[in-house]
């Protein structure tokens, strides 16, 4: 894209900032390239470069955001695209390009801001790691690729960045590749996401085949614009699905792979083998959000042809999957003991919320939860990281306790994040975003089941978070050596994130739905009549009650009593069966092990058998025939050929000896040979050029 800037033709509409938008991803990628060339001991320059480049991107993103904001304030539809042909084959051309619209702008700011905070945090967290520079190289490569995903206006470009993101996630999960578990987790993540990406690629190809363009928005002829969509809608893909719907589902498969939706979520918990900043950055804030963002980006495609009930098949599927994932993951989270695993599962369930929000309430609802979640989940992961750091790499919450005394800052910030995640009323952003989703689900007129599922998920969320916090910060210290508070460079980002975890909610309240207005491009009036919608008040009350219920239950069970590490969990005593099931992640991995993997193993055995017996047999027969032929030849050789051949060989070797003698190591001999060569050459030339 950078190299191609020669073939780069900015549109007339594109403003200066839109024209240089490509710098936002380009700079971190460039930085990672430079860092890759650095030597291991050059720690400080590497970190400085990474952070500097990302803050540059943040600056540009803020400028872009301001630009879009200004346009929105003048109630103009801001969507600027810069497209150029990468290369042509035949009559079709492969176009790349980038777009600047409210969605991209908000996402840009979020990604680069959270990313920057996490970079800073990693300076402290990775301080003792010897592969510091490699870490920052991967990190900035990831940041760049993610930003590329955000701004890309061509689905091909998006897919490229998407794959780079997958690659970096693989590299970062396997960062401590000497740990076999980490290596395995990395492989798992890579393969699982590839599984989704295959469908995604199919969707891309199909889309390209149908619409003939790769661009999303291209002045009315892009694939997400009226003409192409109408065309897609008329095409039929069988099963009573329109092409648009089918493509949407394929793309959703890719998104599900990336952001751990139900069938493909298995890699996300294992991904916690990576360093904690990675877990925070990739598997909470940004990368997993890429799937959600993808759906938001292609939302017109999903939405087109919405029936009387205001939904399409694709969206319905998304909604169900999301809701299911939300509850499913929340259930598992209840029974985990690894502090990061709990957060991982909560991430999965929150992603489910986002998907459901997208499907039920539209782009704004889902994206709002994405943004708020990015902040408070990053905060929670950083807190967890700080706890792990402080407890000397201990991750089992049963071996902690009473940390509120040892690590006060971590405790406060973590509590804020936890409350935000639970959706504690009024003061925390999670409340407003989750409430939006619940409201949307409640007003969904296909079925009420998703609403109840999501509500139950909210209850579980509050419960397991309380459990975790009780284990970690209350009770008495159950570890061996005493914990210590983390350095300031780790605390600071947490404080900042905590602030946003609380404040961000205010831009999406029903009273002032600024966020939704911004995304949907209409004005945002400020009035408390927003609350006056029928049922909204009740709904808010209900969800608050649910949250309080969850918190209360959690406190009642785990409160301040903090059992011994060995003694079984409270719930385990009451319902061992369920507990065991939850504890073992509802046997999903085992299920895959028993079905998919078993099938592959069986197929491998079959192939092996085929190889050995069938093909092998044929090969053997052929070989035998050739062996026969060879024997015959050998006879010929030994009789006739060899004699002369051996003679030749001897002559050759003796000649080699002669040649070797030429290499006498005496300069003058070489000079002599040179002179002779010159003579011959000159003679030849002269002779040939004789008049």
């Amino acid at each position, binding site marked *: 894209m950078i190299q191609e800037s020669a073939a780069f033709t900015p549109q007339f509409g594109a403003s200066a900032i839109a024209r240089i938008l490509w710098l936002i991803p380009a700079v971190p990628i460039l930085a990672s390239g430079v860092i890759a060339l650095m030597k291991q001991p050059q720690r400080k320059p590497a970190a400085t470069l990474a952070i500097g480049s990302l803050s540059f991107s943040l600056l540009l993103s803020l400028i872009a955001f301001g630009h879009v904001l200004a346009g929105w304030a003048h109630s103009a539809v801001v969507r600027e695209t810069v497209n150029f042909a990468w290369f042509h084959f035949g009559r079709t051309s492969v176009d790349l390009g980038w777009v600047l619209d409210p969605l991209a702008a908000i996402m840009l700011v979020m990604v680069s801001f959270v990313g920057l905070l996490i970079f800073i945090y990693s300076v402290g967290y990775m301080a003792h790691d010897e592969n510091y520079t490699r870490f920052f190289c991967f990190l900035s490569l990831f940041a760049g690729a993610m930003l590329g995903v955000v701004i890309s206006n061509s689905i091909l470009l998006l897919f490229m960045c998407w794959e780079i993101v997958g690659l970096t996630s693989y590299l970062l999960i396997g960062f401590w590749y000497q740990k076999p578990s980490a290596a395995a987790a990395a492989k798992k993540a890579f393969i699982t996401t590839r599984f989704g990406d295959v469908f995604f690629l199919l969707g891309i190809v199909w889309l390209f085949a149908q619409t003939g363009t790769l661009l999303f928005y291209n002045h009315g002829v892009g694939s997400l614009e009226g003409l192409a969509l109408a065309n897609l809608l008329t095409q039929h893909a069988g099963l009573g699905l329109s092409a648009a719907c089918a493509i949407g589902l394929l793309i959703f498969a890719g998104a599900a792979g990336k952001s751990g939706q139900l069938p493909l979520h298995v890699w996300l918990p294992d991904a916690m083998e990576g360093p904690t900043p990675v877990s925070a950055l990739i598997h909470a804030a940004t990368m997993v959000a890429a799937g959600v963002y993808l759906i938001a980006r292609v939302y017109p495609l999903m939405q087109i042809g919405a029936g009387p009930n205001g939904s399409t098949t694709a969206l319905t599927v998304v909604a169900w999957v999301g809701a299911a994932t939300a509850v499913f993951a929340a259930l598992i989270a209840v029974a985990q003991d690894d502090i990061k695993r709990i957060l991982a599962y909560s991430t999965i369930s929150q992603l489910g919320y986002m998907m459901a929000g997208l499907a039920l309430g539209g782009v704004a609802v889902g994206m709002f939860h994405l943004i708020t979640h990015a902040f408070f989940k990053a905060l929670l992961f950083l807190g967890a990281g700080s706890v792990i750091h402080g407890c000397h790499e201990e991750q089992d919450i049963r071996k902690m306790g009473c940390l509120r005394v040892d690590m006060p800052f971590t405790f406060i910030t973590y509590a804020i994040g936890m409350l935000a995640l639970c959706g504690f009323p009024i003061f925390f952003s999670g409340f407003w975003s989750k409430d939006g989703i619940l409201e949307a689900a409640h007003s969904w007129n296909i079925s009420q089941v998703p609403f109840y599922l999501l509500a139950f998920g909210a209850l579980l969320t509050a419960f397991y978070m309380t459990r975790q916090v009780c284990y970690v910060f209350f009770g008495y210290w159950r570890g061996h050596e005493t914990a210590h508070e983390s350095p300031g460079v780790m605390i600071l980002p947490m404080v900042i994130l905590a602030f946003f975890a609380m404040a961000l909610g205010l831009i999406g309240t029903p009273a002032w739905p600024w966020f939704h207005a911004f995304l949907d491009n209409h004005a945002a009036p400020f009035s408390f009549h927003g609350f006056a919608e029928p049922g909204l008040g009740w709904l808010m009350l209900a969800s608050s009650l649910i949250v309080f219920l969850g918190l209360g239950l959690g406190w009642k069970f785990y409160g301040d009593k903090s059992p011994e590490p060995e003694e079984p969990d409270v719930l385990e005593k009451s319902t061992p069966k369920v507990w065991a099931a939850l504890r073992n992640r509802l046997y999903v991995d085992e299920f895959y092990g028993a079905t998919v993997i078993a099938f592959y193993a069986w197929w491998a055995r079959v192939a092996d058998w085929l190889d050995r017996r069938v093909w092998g047999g044929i090969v053997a027969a052929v070989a035998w025939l050739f062996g026969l032929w060879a024997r015959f030849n050998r006879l010929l050789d030994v009789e006739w050929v060899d004699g002369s051949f051996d003679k030749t060989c001897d002559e050759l070797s003796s000649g080699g000896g002669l040649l070797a003698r*030429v*290499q006498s*190591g*005496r*300069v*003058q001999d070489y*000079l002599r040979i040179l*002179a002779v060569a010159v003579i011959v050459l000159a003679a030849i030339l002269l002779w040939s050029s004789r008049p």
Partner: protein
Amino acid sequence: MIGATPLAGYLLVAALLFAIGLAGALTRRNAILVLIGIELMLNAANLNLIAFWRYGPHPEALTGMMFAIFSIAVAAAEAAVGLGLVISIYRHTNTAELDKISRMKG
């Protein structure tokens, strides 16, 4: 008389000088002498260049002259480096006789 034209005369002198230099470079045992021979060859080339410049069609273009001047400069560099090498070789293998130095023998 040699060469009906002056140019031929100069070229022949240059050729002879070149041959002499080559002979020196090929037959002497001391590295420094070899370098001297090489210098002689370079000078013969310079003589050719100047002669062609003088008797060529476009002397005002100065090409041959420039070529000669540059080659003089380069020859100076070459001499400096070559003699430095000879000295360092002498330091290592206490001799400057080329046929005693055959460490690169294949």
